[in-house]
């Protein structure tokens, strides 16, 4: 009996997989990918998606030397920046793929504000590459910086979560979804540096904290500017029992 049942189940799953393929094929036909660069509009050559080679070349990876703590580009090796000097960050290290300007800034804007969701693939891939270059311990969970449900509804998606999923898909590290935002906050980008920390203070909470007790976590966000958001999230995660928190963002402001 038992065997029969599981066979049926696997058959069912197989047919579901077939169905998924058909649905995907249908959706791809219904929402065709435009063979033009999202930024400059140049025709894409075969096998290249979203961003043309020329625009890709203009992406600026953050180049060392970096602040050992927050990842800001500096002139000298093995040091910390003025911001981090004497400051106690909750996370261990923060790193980013690129500098938040030029092409990267534009595609992050397209991604977040113009809802060009498929860009998560491209940005997530770049972040995965950055992750793999780090000399970091292996992670138990990826954690995306959450949006308030209200804002997530407005935008239709959580940009950090999509990035976390892409990285998860490439690295096999599962995504922890227990970090929540309980209070709607102002857009950090609209605030001056000193106000930012106050803005996010107490805005987060952790559900299912037992899952992350003693674990090593990688916090994922789109942009790191002053580190207030990353700091606050790390603090909450540590309070919930996490052992260590690292931070990976797409861009460094």
């Amino acid at each position, binding site marked *: 009996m038992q065997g029969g049942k599981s066979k049926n189940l696997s058959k069912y799953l197989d047919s579901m997989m077939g169905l998924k393929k058909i649905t995907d094929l249908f959706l791809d*036909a219904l929402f065709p990918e435009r063979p033009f660069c999202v930024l400059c509009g140049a025709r894409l050559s075969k096998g290249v998606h979203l961003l043309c080679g020329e625009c890709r070349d203009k992406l600026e990876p953050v180049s060392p030397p970096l602040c050992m703590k927050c990842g800001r580009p500096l002139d000298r090796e093995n040091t910390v920046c003025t911001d981090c000097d004497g400051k106690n960050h909750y996370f261990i290290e923060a790193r980013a793929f690129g500098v938040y300007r030029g092409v990267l800034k534009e595609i992050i804007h397209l991604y977040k504000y113009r*809802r060009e969701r498929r860009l998560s693939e491209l940005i997530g891939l770049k972040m995965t590459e950055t992750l793999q270059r780090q000399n970091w311990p292996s992670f138990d969970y990826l954690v995306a910086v959450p949006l308030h449900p209200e804002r997530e509804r407005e935008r239709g998606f959580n940009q950090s979560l999509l990035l976390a999923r892409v990285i998860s898909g490439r690295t096999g590290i599962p995504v922890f979804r227990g970090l929540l935002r309980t209070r709607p906050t102002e857009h950090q980008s609209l605030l001056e540096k000193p106000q930012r920390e106050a803005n996010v203070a107490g805005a987060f909470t952790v559900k299912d904290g037992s899952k992350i007790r003693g674990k090593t976590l990688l916090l994922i966000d789109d942009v790191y500017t002053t580190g207030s958001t990353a700091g606050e999230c790390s603090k909450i995660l540590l309070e919930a029992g996490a052992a260590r928190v690292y931070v990976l963002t797409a861009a460094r402001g």
Partner: protein
Amino acid sequence: MYRPFLFIFIFFAAGIIAGEYIKILWLFALMLIASFGLYFFARDFRKMVFLGIFIFAAGALYHSFCSTRMEGTIANYAGDYRTVIGVVVSPPEVDETKATYEVKTLYILQNGKYIKAPGKIRVSVPRKNSMELLNYGDVAEFSGYLRIPTSFQNPGGFDYKAYLAQKGITATMFSREMKYLGKVNVNPLVKFALDFRERIQNFYRCALSPKLASLLSGIVLGLKGDIPEDVLKAFSDGGVLHVLTASGLNVGIVYTAVEGVLKFLKLSPRTCFLSGSAAVLFYSLMAGMSPPVLRAALMLEVVMLGRLIGRKSDPLNSLGFAGFLLLLANSFNIFSASFQLSFAATLGIILLFKPLRQFFDSIPAFFRDSLAVLISAQLLLFPFLAYYFHKISLAGFLLNFIVVPLAGAALLGGFLAGILNFIPFLAVPIVKITGVLIFLMDWVTTLMSKLPYATFSVPSLGPLAVLAYFALITAFFAPVEALGIKRKLNLTIIGLCFLIVAWSIFWVKPGFEVTFLDVGQGDCIFIKTEDGGTILIDGGGMPSYYKGSFDIGKNVILPYLYDRGVRKLDVVVFTHFDSDHAGGLLSIIEEMDVKAVVIGHPDGSEIYRKMEEVASKKKIPVLAVSRGDTFRVGEAVFHVLNPSRHQLFEDDNDNSVVLKMTYRGLRFLFTGDLGFEGEKDVMAECDVEADVLKVAHHGSDTSTSPEFLNRVNPDFAVISVGKNNSFGHPSTKVLELLEKSKIRVYRTDIHGAISFKIRGNNVRLNTQKK
């Protein structure tokens, strides 16, 4: 080709059109199999070619499948008095005298037994005072004469039979006896939608005057059934008929309203999407699932689904998707005017809006965008408007700026009032205010559509001109680099195509032409002289007992004249005032620029009175002619042979105007309804010999005596007569006589329109049906 559905749609539609005209199934089957096989061996571009051929062949085969599936067998029983049992599948179309339904037939009474006869017919039932109307899902027994719909076979004419075939209707019945039998289980959602629509419409009717209520139904639901003819014509001439069609704006409002409310209640995006979609489906059912509504609904759904799952839709691809689904639902859709107009307009806006907006950069934003929408749609609509309406509206370029905002506000008001109809104290004020807007809209439309030069008549474009037209648009709007041609060449193409299009619109075919139009039972002869002179002799007409809205003049003759590029008539001849000769002429002299009306003997008939009324209103001179008079139009000389100046016959037919026209030695004799008595009289006093004889009185056995025929001694005889007419015209006696005299006979009921074209010493005879 990165838009898969546009690709599929284009080839599928092309396949359907090919399948309609080429009925060689094995050829398409072969294409299907061959392209399927070759697809796997080809690569890149060729792969796409084979895929295209595959879809093309599939379209042709699918169309043939649809044709057979829809046809059923009911049409095989046409041509007799029949009793059928069927289910009503549409809400009634009601006018003062009758209610018309689409009926899916189930059984037909044959030798006392009911046998299966599936199919769809259109049934009209006369309205008696106490009679309840049937509705969707009612089953009834109808008895009446079952007939195959007839079309008038004239160039540029509207094909009624094909129009019905698009809806799967193969026969019509006028049912004087009807017995209600019961109800079948119908789709409750459809039933609910139709009931709700009835409720809303009734609410409009209670609160507003019939005209305003019907216009509001048009604006909100796209239903034009109740709108009076003259109002529809004003909107059509004013170029604002589109506001009476349900489309993108309507479904957009429905979706946004539902989604907005649910969003406010903080429901999940998925719930909002599903509810909005359900509302759009419900609305589409209410709006009768017409092609424009479905197109708009499907395109909206694609956008919204994309928003839900975070993907971007491409308007062109979505248009192709909507088109493909509509063709799958019914392949005949591609031949329907509303499908073509809706898709052409949308395509125009998608493709040309942006370049046009750039073009009008210097105009203030509001006007610029509206103007760009208007012109982008009009540009692609043009060949279709020329084909279906034979005119384009110049007033529309101004009127749209007034009417579109008014209609938009009325649409909102109509929706709101419709939904709130069960709370009268809220809904009534709203609908009253809306009524004011509609009143203004109707007033300004009527006013402007009557201005001189409000419309410009265009003949339908031939295949070459249509190609040239689209090439012109492409060359004009597509960026030169995209076409891969040099700028100079591009300009040459633009110039050349422009010339071809302009030429086909303004160029009047040279040569002398006499055309006997198919007006069913009746006479209508159109003559065009070498230098563009135009004469119309009679204009058909419906029998005087007919109470419907069909008018031969408006629905058959005018479209023909417009299609030929005729913009004025020099002479309109009323041979006499019987309805089957003069009835259709009334709307012609009303509509057209007529220089003179020629009559014989005035009589006291209703039609004569109306003719005088119109003529005096439009200051058209009415000339009474009699034997001995002559007039010329261009090179054609008309001798009046009848009536005689002094003596009148008792039978008005014998007083018909008889004209003998001579052009370059070629003689035509037009005899009206002249009978034996009149023939004798004419023969005694005039030379009647002619090359072409219009056989008098539709070939009746009270005309065309052997002596008369002998004296005329024609080579050709034309009989203008309706198929299966109740008079038994033409008589076998006359037909035999003509045959015995070795005269070549042409009949409008068999050959359709018959035309003699004379160029130089050449006479060519063309018939609409071969």
